[in-house]
């Protein structure tokens, strides 16, 4: 029996996270997850800034699901003030979310392929993702933090030429998702590394309260979009569900969701209503007193915001729960019984985003306090791990 620390800095992880693994030969017998390496205190920052300023800080929480964060926050604020957002704005907002889901799923497919070692496929998915990013850039003005959403709707209107480009993009993604599905189901190397790896049975998934594509891959048909916020209460779409619960099923769910997203986008641009796109608001307007919650389906699963206002220009409390926080325990659970070599694939399998996840910090004021130099800290770290 040996104990191996994986992370926080490890070639397999793109972002810092630490798994403490207990090994029996090559097999993982126990895994413990430790998070909190990239905590940035954004919730606290939100209390210091006015609610309008925080619209543009909230999208900096995650580089990949930036507009999901922004949209979820704005949706909560709209509930607090009780306004009805502009319909055209809402449609453009939904379009941004779906474009974002496409680019996130393509990114994740690429990362998974990279973890497995199929670099050619990584290049293909990221190349296709670039097309989506081009459209997002034209929509918002930036590749990653598009700031396309604002109070009461969306920030920029769609031009006719952009609509044509979006339709072309959807056709392109529809065609590509077929290729990805075919690859996921048939490629021998991919199947060897993903079939039966990281299996999360339905009962376990329910017990661990996983969300998003991870839950859907285990046969739980949950999707916040089906609750009918924004334009989803009109747009027709199916929730993609697979039964196996392994990494392969996860990949299949996401490849099929590319198709679903492309179809939603096509529906939106076809049924785009006319009218205003957002509601103008004075720069230092106050929020009414009250509290509310807001949920959206981010590419990785359910994103949750809790907002509390005391009637001033700033919010009193913002609480964010990101999908990775709900899913990360499932990784620690499914790692048990697998080879050490499969750990990166399983960890990548939930599409983790550590930057979003690290929201909670517990300070234990009671314990001993000590200031250490760098060498002391390294020595301490080595001793800590030797102890097991």
């Amino acid at each position, binding site marked *: 029996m040996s104990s191996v620390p994986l992370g926080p800095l490890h070639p397999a992880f793109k972002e810092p996270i630490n798994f403490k693994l207990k090994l029996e030969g090559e097999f993982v017998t126990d895994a413990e997850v430790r998070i909190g390496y990239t905590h940035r205190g954004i919730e606290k920052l939100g209390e210091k800034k006015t609610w309008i300023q925080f619209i*543009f800080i909230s999208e900096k929480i995650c580089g990949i699901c930036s507009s999901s964060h922004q949209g979820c926050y704005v949706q909560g604020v709209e509930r607090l003030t009780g306004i009805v957002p502009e319909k055209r704005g809402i449609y453009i907002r939904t379009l941004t979310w779906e474009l974002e889901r496409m680019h996130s799923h393509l990114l994740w497919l690429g990362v998974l392929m990279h973890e497995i070692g199929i670099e050619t496929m990584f290049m293909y998915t990221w190349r296709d993702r*670039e097309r989506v990013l081009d459209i997002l850039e034209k929509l918002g003005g930036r590749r990653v933090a598009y700031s396309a959403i604002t109070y009461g709707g969306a920030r920029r209107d769609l031009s006719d030429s952009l609509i044509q480009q979006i339709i072309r993009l959807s056709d392109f993604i529809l065609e590509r998702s077929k290729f990805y599905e075919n690859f996921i189901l048939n490629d021998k190397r991919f199947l060897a590394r993903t079939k039966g790896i990281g299996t999360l049975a339905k009962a376990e998934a329910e017990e661990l309260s996983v969300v998003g594509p991870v839950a859907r891959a285990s046969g739980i048909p949950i999707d916040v979009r089906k609750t009918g916020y924004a334009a989803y209460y009109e747009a027709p779409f199916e929730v993609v569900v697979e039964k196996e619960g392994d990494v392969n099923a996860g990949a299949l769910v996401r490849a099929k969701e590319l198709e679903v997203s492309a179809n939603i986008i096509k529906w939106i641009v076809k049924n785009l209503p006319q009218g205003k796109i957002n509601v103008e608001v004075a720069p230092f307007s106050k929020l009414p007193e009250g509290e509310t919650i807001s949920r959206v389906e981010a590419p990785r699963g359910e994103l949750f915001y809790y907002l509390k206002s005391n009637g001033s220009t700033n919010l009193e409390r913002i609480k964010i729960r990101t999908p990775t926080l709900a899913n990360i325990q499932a990784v620690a659970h499914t790692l048990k019984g697998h080879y050490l070599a499969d750990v990166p694939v399983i960890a990548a399998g939930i599409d983790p985003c550590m930057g979003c996840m690290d929201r909670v910090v517990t300070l234990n004021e009671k314990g001993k306090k000590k200031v250490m130099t760098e060498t002391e800290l390294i020595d301490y770290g080595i001793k800590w791990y030797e102890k097991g």
Partner: protein
Amino acid sequence: MELLTEAIKNLFKRPFTEEKSKEKDWFIRGKLILDISKCTGCSLCEKVCPSKAITMVEDNRTKLKKSPIIDVSECIFCGLCVDYCPTKALAFTKSCALVSYEKKDFVKG
């Protein structure tokens, strides 16, 4: 096998990456530019900026008491100042190559 077919198909395709800036409708929120002749010195941009990138300073650029200078290295390109400036004195440019060794290169009026 799937990959091989795809690779052969790609041999006959056009290059995927193209020069974007040549496209007409390309929109990018790049470095901010201030048209000092339009500015009234109301300092609203300073107040709305979430990252405190704008400061009002006294200088002799205009007859105004105070006028804004923008530190681009602090800017998060949210566009709130552009939205709220009453005289439309601030605007985004298309320049987004923000590389310099010197901090002072980022600060401009």
